[in-house]
């Protein structure tokens, strides 16, 4: 079949070499990373943290900081006008960590389950160095999906749980306790500067070279000379309001004072959220800003008699518990009785909704899905921000969600760690340790 009207979408295979400071990087050394999260699998599609898996297993494309797809294991791609047929040209001379070359056949084998899970009946045909992905239905978001670490191209063996093409290979894995990565000498993008990365899940210490600092109670005491690095806000904390009268939702939204939550509970690390997408992603968050108005909330409740509401939060999330307490306090001022409860079955649910990409359209589509109305986000166009604004406004006016605040990822960096800031610019939401180096 001839492919008419195919447009070249990406012609170059740009590599980014982020360096900062006038001192050139040094090779060698080990970096220790303590993370508060725990996980027991290395499967990118099943719980392995998305911030880490790209170190080991790579995707065909990745999203840059502007949300645009960039070449990774695919150097370029074409699609038809209907976006039903996509052809990807694989990067040459790429090897898996066990020395096997990356082929179209191995890529197809790895991608098929995740793509079928996402798009249902889909065809993947491997050529000599190309992959053809086609479906009977349009796949306008295919590039964003392929950039998700869940779509990482990888293999497994009896001995190694995850064999990828990334800059680091797995050296040792003690499930839930310790993950040791070693530099992949034959990495197509150049060997990482570090020799080794030792990652400790579930660690509450602050003695490693790099450690995360979750916002909220139980913050670690950090040693002297630790530098604190924050990402752009990447997690929305919100109250989901599935089955409550709209007037009660409106009154509750007006009663909540976000300022003390940001100032006291997040120690100013968070930002007040009035919309779904953060300002850095949408550019129009300020249009939704509404100051708290307890008097109006009270008036709205008027003579309304409603049963006490329960506000559930994840049982092991101390930060969300403190936010829930604050919401209950504000609600009481407006005459709404809200009882915080641990679990997931409240009339109201306090949740964390992490952003997964820098693609505003994809994120709004995903959030519409979370709110149970995916059809509301069917006509979005990134080049026309009004379409995103209108969709977001409608989603908010449907009274299914009360955005509260945005949280960043926060890390403590020891004095040996170099090139962190520049390294993290190379894409979003992932730890780009391949560009980090350490002082001896």
């Amino acid at each position, binding site marked *: 079949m001839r492919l008419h009207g195919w447009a070249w979408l990406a012609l*170059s295979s*740009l*590599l*980014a*070499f*982020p*360096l*900062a*400071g*006038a*001192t*050139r*990087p*040094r*090779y060698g050394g080990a970096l220790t990373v303590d993370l508060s999260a725990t996980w027991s699998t290395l499967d990118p599609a099943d719980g392995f943290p998305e911030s880490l898996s790209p170190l080991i297993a790579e995707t065909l494309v990745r999203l840059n*900081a*502007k*949300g645009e797809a960039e070449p990774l294991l695919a150097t370029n791609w074409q699609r038809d006008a209907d976006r039903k047929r996509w052809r990807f040209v694989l990067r040459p001379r790429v090897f898996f960590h066990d020395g096997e070359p990356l082929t179209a056949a191995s890529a197809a084998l790895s991608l098929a389950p995740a793509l079928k899970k996402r798009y249902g009946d889909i065809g993947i045909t491997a050529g000599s160095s190309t992959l053809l992905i086609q479906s009977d239905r349009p796949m306008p978001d295919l590039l964003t999906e392929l950039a998700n670490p869940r779509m990482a191209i990888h293999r497994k063996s009896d001995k190694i749980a995850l064999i990828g093409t990334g800059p680091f290979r797995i050296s040792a894995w003690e499930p839930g306790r310790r993950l040791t990565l070693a530099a992949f*000498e*034959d*990495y*197509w*993008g*150049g*060997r*990482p*500067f570090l020799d080794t990365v030792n990652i400790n899940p579930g660690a509450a210490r602050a003695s490693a070279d790099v450690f995360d600092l979750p916002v909220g109670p139980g913050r670690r005491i950090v040693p002297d000379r630790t530098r604190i690095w924050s990402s752009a806000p990447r997690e929305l904390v919100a109250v989901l309001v599935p089955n409550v009268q709209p007037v009660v939702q409106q009154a509750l939204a007006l009663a909540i004072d976000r300022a003390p939550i940001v100032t006291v509970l997040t120690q100013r690390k968070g930002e007040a959220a009035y919309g779904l997408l953060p*300002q*850095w*992603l*949408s*550019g*129009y968050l*300020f*249009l939704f800003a509404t100051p708290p108005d307890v008097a109006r909330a009270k008036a709205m409740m008027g003579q309304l008699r409603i049963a006490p509401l329960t506000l559930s939060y994840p049982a092991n999330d101390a930060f969300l518990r403190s936010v829930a307490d604050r919401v209950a306090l504000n609600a009481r001022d407006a005459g709404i009785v809200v009882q915080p409860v641990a679990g997931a079955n409240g009339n109201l649910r306090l949740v964390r909704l992490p952003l997964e990409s*820098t693609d*505003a359209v994809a994120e709004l589509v995903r959030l519409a899905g979370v709110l149970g109305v995916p059809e509301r986000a069917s006509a979005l166009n*990134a*080049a*026309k*921000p*009004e379409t995103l*604004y209108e969709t977001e406004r409608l989603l908010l006016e449907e009274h299914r969600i009360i955005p509260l605040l945005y949280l960043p990822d926060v890390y403590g960096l020891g004095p040996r760690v170099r090139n962190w*800031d*520049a390294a993290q610019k190379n894409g979003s939401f992932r730890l780009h340790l*391949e*560009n980090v180096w350490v002082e*001896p």
Partner: protein
Amino acid sequence: MLRVAFALLFGWILPLPAQAQPMGEAAQQMAARISSLLQRRATVSLEFQNLTQLPPADSSSFRSALEEELRKAGLEMANTAQPDFRLRVTASENVRGLLFVAEAASGDNRQVTMLPWNLPPRAAAKPRIRIAMQPIWEQAEPVLDLLLLDSGSTMLVLGPAKVSNFRMVNGKWNPAGGVAISMLRPLPRDPRGRLELSASGFRVYLPDATCSGVLQPDLKLTCSAANERWPLGGAQVRWQNDRNLLESDSPRGPFYTVAVGLLATAEGRIQDRNGEQVSGADGWGSDVVSVDNPCGADPALVVAKAGDGRDHDEVQAYEMVNGLARAASEPVSLPGAVTALWPAESRGQATLVIRDSKTGNYAASRLGLACAE
């Protein structure tokens, strides 16, 4: 002839990205969008807010231009307490760039229109004193080194995987071919490479590859998987395999660079041939180059240093006086990190490449020194 070439360089203009749009045009388009929401001859009060890093002068000129365009569109700008529409225009930004947002409110009715905008990149900070810097070329892919030939009318650009040839036509560089470099091993993550003139053409030195090239009759390159020696700073150096480091028989490596007998070592020290740390070289980075000094007998050193911002390096000229490094110019702030600093074909110049922290592009410049007036 080299002076002529240098003079020509000063006439070159750094090309702007094709999609950069001037602010006056933004005001015009924004006014058109706003006026399409409102009836002609409506009275409008305008409030303007700037949520971006736009300098006050730019946002002020945008506002003035917008008011002018709104008047041209038939709207009446009013300071009355009861305008037909209250217009709030916000200069905002998102991941894609600038975003102008206009809200037109009349009673409870509110209409919103938006205009995404690509701002032209800011010009590099101009040096206050006597390091003269002339932009030459900018591209998305790394520039490892650059050669100017034929009195500055031909340019060779060394990238991580190819050598590109450009010809100057009517003051602009036009592509004139390129040739890929076949590498058996991936380049190091901090890719470095060197272009040198040779009797028959030019030579390319990369970690794990050495190539001989000719320009005539066509650009051709023959490479071998070897680290051959080449001259730098008075020594014969070669790359280390898979690394961003150099070595030589004397002085011995590893080091990042060598200039008039001074080494920037892999340990981050600046030392002389005897291995002694150089006094006055505090804060020097890994890139140092010697350039003829028009104001002194001995060559000066141009040194890359970390600037105030994490992504903004600077360069500064030094003179060696009795074994001590002494600053000879003010530091020149750069809009990104230094990725290469090499001697040029002429001893009076150096090639500087930075990675612009705003655009992400690699920008190559020629540096020269001039005496302060």
